[in-house]
């Protein structure tokens, strides 16, 4: 379309044309709606603020029970969710019923009860196999659905975009054209829902989709009001293909098994007594090969983590080799909410915690803070904080704590000489150990001789505020820097 066309004319043009285009049969607009979400992320660099709002639009999959399935990324930090009927253009406000960031998936529900029943709900398809052709659904500007065939090339366990979890993923290939409102797209097979496209790279024409077992597991979890849905065992492993390694471990040449290289000290595997150096040879009767795969009845070799992440939360027998002895332990995998981490892998939909004292701004370390450094945050964010986040299990094996740090200083009469300090971990305040912002808040209530004494991990190692002065400068500080609230703990 000519971009110089005045908007009014453009509208007339479209309105004039639409009767001529083949009006879709009501039965054909099966199971898809437009979902428009206005999000406003919290600003982790100025934790008392939100960033500018932004609106994104996606195609949602209509399920029975007045529900629409979209990606979690779409609804993250939402202020307002709206569903639009593709044919009538009728709109309804909606609420987010459930969201799971591990699986990047969410359910939204229109507030108008009469809204969705007029659209036929999608059933869940059986699992597709590699080589199958499936359809991604977008909307033309006319509102009619556009279906693009994509070929399923690979089924594997891979990283999902928000959390640090790896789940079963569909990799697809095909030429997906650009259309507005394509932030996430349902993937259909013979009119049934088989996945949700969450990433597309136009250069390689490769798309990644949430797989149907993940969708099923999510819906089952929502049905029983689970808070976390995808269980983990808390174990990392390495392949044992190397014959020199096998010989050292005392493994027979033809046999399978992977070497346990890391145990989450507070995870289910640790509780079950699995140790670093054990060789994991089978899970629930499924033989594990030398690369850590089991034989999936439909997809062939699939990573053992799929066995765990799709399991119900019940005891699973793990067979191990330890010093040549076979051993069976019972592991009960469970989901790990991000708040259980020392440095949480993500924090969406909730405001960052912080505390401002006399101009010193304190926060708790999390990957959401580090992500403020943009797409290559894992290289550009402050190195010391990246290191603490990446190696948190190694550095704080005792767990059950947060990492509190001085994120920056708002210059005030109380912070003279401290203006350039930033990204310094707080170890003790007024003689008390600091393992969370609550600890800091409590410590600040007990100044020593009228001073707030902060001990930091890194130069200059110690700074001091005058308690009375800090309080005196606070109103002006709040006014000057727009700090609406002094703390959110």
């Amino acid at each position, binding site marked *: 379309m000519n971009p110089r066309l005045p908007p009014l004319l453009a509208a007339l043009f479209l309105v004039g044309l639409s009767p001529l285009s083949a009006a879709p049969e009501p039965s054909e607009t099966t199971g898809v709606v437009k979902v428009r979400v206005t999000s406003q992320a919290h600003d982790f660099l100025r934790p008392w603020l939100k960033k500018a709002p932004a609106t994104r639009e996606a195609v949602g999959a209509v399920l029975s029970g007045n529900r629409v399935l979209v990606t979690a990324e779409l609804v993250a930090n939402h202020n307002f969710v709206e569903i639009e009927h593709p044919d009538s253009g009728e709109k309804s406000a909606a609420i987010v019923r459930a969201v799971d960031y591990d699986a990047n998936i969410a359910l939204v529900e229109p507030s108008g009860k009469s809204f969705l029943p007029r659209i036929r709900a999608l059933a869940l398809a059986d699992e597709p196999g590699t080589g199958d052709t499936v359809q991604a659904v977008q909307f033309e500007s006319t509102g009619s659905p556009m279906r693009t065939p994509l070929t399923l090339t690979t089924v594997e366990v891979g990283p999902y975009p928000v959390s640090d979890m790896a789940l079963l993923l569909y990799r697809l290939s095909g030429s997906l054209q650009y259309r507005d409102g394509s932030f996430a797209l349902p993937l259909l097979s013979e009119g049934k829902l088989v996945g949700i496209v969450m990433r597309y790279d136009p250069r390689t024409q490769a798309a990644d989709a949430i797989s149907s077992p993940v969708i099923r597991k999510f819906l089952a979890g929502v049905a029983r009001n689970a808070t976390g849905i995808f269980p983990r065992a808390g174990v990392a492993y390495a392949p044992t*293909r190397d014959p*020199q*390694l096998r010989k050292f471990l005392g493994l027979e040449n033809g046999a399978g098994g992977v070497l346990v290289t890391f145990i989450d000290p507070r995870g289910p595997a640790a509780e079950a007594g699995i140790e670093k150096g054990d060789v994991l040879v089978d899970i629930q009767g499924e033989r594990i090969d030398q690369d850590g795969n089991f034989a999936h009845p439909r997809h062939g070799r699939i990573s053992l983590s799929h066995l765990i992440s799709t399991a119900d939360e019940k005891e699973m027998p793990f067979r191990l080799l330890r010093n040549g002895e076979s051993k069976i332990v019972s592991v009960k995998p469970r989901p790990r909410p991000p708040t259980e981490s020392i440095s949480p892998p993500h924090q969406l939909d909730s405001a960052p915690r912080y505390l401002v004292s006399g101009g010193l701004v304190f926060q708790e370390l999390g990957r959401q803070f580090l992500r403020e450094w943009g797409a290559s945050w894992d290289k550009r964010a402050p190195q010391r904080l990246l290191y603490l986040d990446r*190696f948190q299990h190694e550095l704080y094996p005792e767990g059950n704590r947060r990492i509190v740090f001085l994120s920056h200083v708002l210059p005030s009469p*109380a912070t*003279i000489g401290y203006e350039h300090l930033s990204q310094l971990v707080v170890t003790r305040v007024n003689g008390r150990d600091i393992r969370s912002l609550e600890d800091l808040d409590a410590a600040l209530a007990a100044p020593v001789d009228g001073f707030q004494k902060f001990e930091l991990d*890194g*130069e*200059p190692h*110690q700074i001091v505020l005058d308690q009375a002065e800090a309080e005196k400068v606070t109103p002006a500080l709040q006014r000057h820097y727009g700090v609406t609230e002094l703390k959110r703990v």
Partner: protein
Amino acid sequence: MRTHSRRIPVLAALLCCLLAAGAEPSRADSTAPIRVRTSLVRVNTTAVLPDYRMPWIAGRSAGGVGAGFVIAGNRVITNAHVVSNARFLALEKDGDPNRWLADVKFIAHDADLALLEVRDPRFFEGMQALEFGGIPPLDSTVSVYGYPIGGERLSITRGVVSRIDFQLYSHSGADSHLAIQIDAAINPGNSGGPVLQAGKVVGVAFQGYSGDVAQNTGYMIPTPVVRRFLKDIEDGAYDRYVDLAIGYFPLLNPAQRRSLGLAANGHGVLVTRVYPQGSCDGVLEKGDVLIEIDGHPVASDSFVELEGERVEMPEIVERKFLGDPVTFRILRNGSEKTVTATLKSAASFMINARNYDVRPRYVALAGLLFQPLDREFIETWRPEDLRIRYTFDEFASDDIYLDRPEVVVLSAVLPDPVNTFLAGFAGGIVDTINDRKIRGLADVAAVVDEKPERYIIRLLGEGRPLVLEHTAAEEAAARIRSRYQIPSDRNLEATR
């Protein structure tokens, strides 16, 4: 502390051009002042630059041109970077077709200065030694002599003294000393040339910014730094600069001053860290307030007054030598006391300095290449791995050097059937081999020399051990040696 200051290396461009400059004979400009013409030396060098990616080879050779000048005692002074890694030095002087072979007698990489010895004493016939002056005042005019790009003959440029300040000396990349900024053009080939005022040397031209960073900013090494170098070598050896090896924090905050029991007199800085094994280890403590250094009151912004100028506190130490004492007046736990430290070099921070005049050190075992983590390693391999970068950057501040004086990295795996499953582990830091903690490259070599049945190599943060059977490694050794042309499985000595 100063040894940690990170500024943009400015010499890089200069150095490249310097080495790329042609080595044609020249005749001095007859209009140049007669005194300088009979003191100036053109230094032709052929250097061999080591290759840290293939540490077993000699490296590529490169020719270059710099300047130098004659000083008292039939000696020639130039920049360290002009003659670093040099294998062949030939000097030229004005109106003389001969090439005079020379050798490096003393070299100070931390001060970018070198002293050359000419093999044939007849070189000095008709040459006049230049004398040193002091620090030229700001806005006074100076002349720079040398052989910069743009022609073959002597070039003279003139400018004013723009700034006198501490600067990073980019030749080592880890040392900051006093430097004088001038607005005369200093270009590749000027390096090592004298900067004169009223017939006396007031500096040695040494570095500048490349034109796309800043214009008309050249730097010279001032005479206090040159004099210190000449004094240091009087005993026949160059000992390097000494360092307090402490961290300190200006005490500008009134509340912090009061909490430390200090008066509002604007004096004193807080000692925030005393580096173990450094000069002040056992003398100063974290939490001490430095009130005076060698009788000079330390202002709360860490400046002291020296010969009528306000300079940063470490300037006091800049003029001292290995083994010299330095005395502090400190406030500790509310009471004042006087303590004395004996100065030494900050060896633990040398991971940050570039290496020169040494062959790269390594151990190769079954195609696994082990190298020490240092600046050359970082600049050669440019690792993106967070653990390596962190270990390099925090080597001094996190006391890593106490635990591992030399961090050894599995830098590369040269593909061979013996190591085909180990390719992905390149870039890991070696923790132990056969349960021996690796605290240096020599530990790796020692395990190899024991000829164990197998090597169990454990990398930091990696739960999977790297296993190499000795027989398999032996069998692969000759194959790898000939395929990859590795003449020796190791070089442990930091020598040429």
